[in-house]
């Protein structure tokens, strides 16, 4: 029970921060397959939009749009090197994934707590 309260406090805090700056969330970042592919690509090295676009059968404009969303989600950061802009993965942001796993675990805990209650009701009925 205590764990769940802690999780709720954490998630509530996270939500409040999100509402405060109204930015896009990381969920949106990985909701699209092309963006997931971009994440995998730049996980290895910082790349320019042109170099990223070469890996996809889509327009440079489409890639730019995905990069803009990823930047808004703070999944990638931009770095100016001379005349070129390089996109790099924000590793800390992806660590949020591990926090999600904890949340997902909590959902299963809740589900099982509910089943415990159902089972105890069934037992009482049988008696």
């Amino acid at each position, binding site marked *: 029970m205590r764990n769940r*309260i802690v999780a*709720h406090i954490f998630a509530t805090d996270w939500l409040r921060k999100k509402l405060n700056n109204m930015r896009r969330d990381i*969920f949106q970042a*990985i909701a699209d397959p092309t963006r*997931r592919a971009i994440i995998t690509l730049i996980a290895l090295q910082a790349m320019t939009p042109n170099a990223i676009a070469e890996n996809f059968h889509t327009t440079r404009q489409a890639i730019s749009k995905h990069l803009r969303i990823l930047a808004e989600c703070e999944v990638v950061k931009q770095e100016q090197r001379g005349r070129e802009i390089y996109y790099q993965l924000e590793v800390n942001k992806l660590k949020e994934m591990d926090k999600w796993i904890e*949340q*997902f675990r*909590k959902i299963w805990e809740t589900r099982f707590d509910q089943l415990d209650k159902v089972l105890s009701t069934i*037992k009482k009925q049988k008696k």
Partner: protein
Amino acid sequence: MSTTLFFDFTVDKQNNIIDIKREFAADRSTVWDCYTKSEILDKWWMPLPWKSRTKSMDFREGGRWHYAAVGPNGEEHWSITTYVKIEPQKLFLANDAFGDSDGNINALMPQSKWTMNFSDRGKNTLVHGIMQFPDLAQLEQTIAMGFKEGLTMAMENLDAILAKR
């Protein structure tokens, strides 16, 4: 009934597997019914404030469970579970997918293969569930969607706290 029930939850990102073990204080046939009869599933399958609402259930090999997860604001997410193999009170294999109210599967949403094993643990029952995803992205997307539900739970909790003030 103060004994703690065994619970183990692991995410194996190398093999795209979520592995969940849980012990329940009831005999195997009762627990089996809870997992395979829709009228009981609807009582516990979705974490509050979500609810599960069955549209149809045909628990046999090749049959499917078609249900909606209904959110606190009436939002609906439809799921389709197709049963592949059933050994009564021992195990079932199923394919889990998202879909629509007409029962069409959405191929763009994550899908997973479920293996549910039921075994005795003293007087209790151990349920071992394995969710196998085709790739890491689908596993991560599923977890991310779960996080959304977690947030809904958190908001309800916040409402409750605010109401007390």
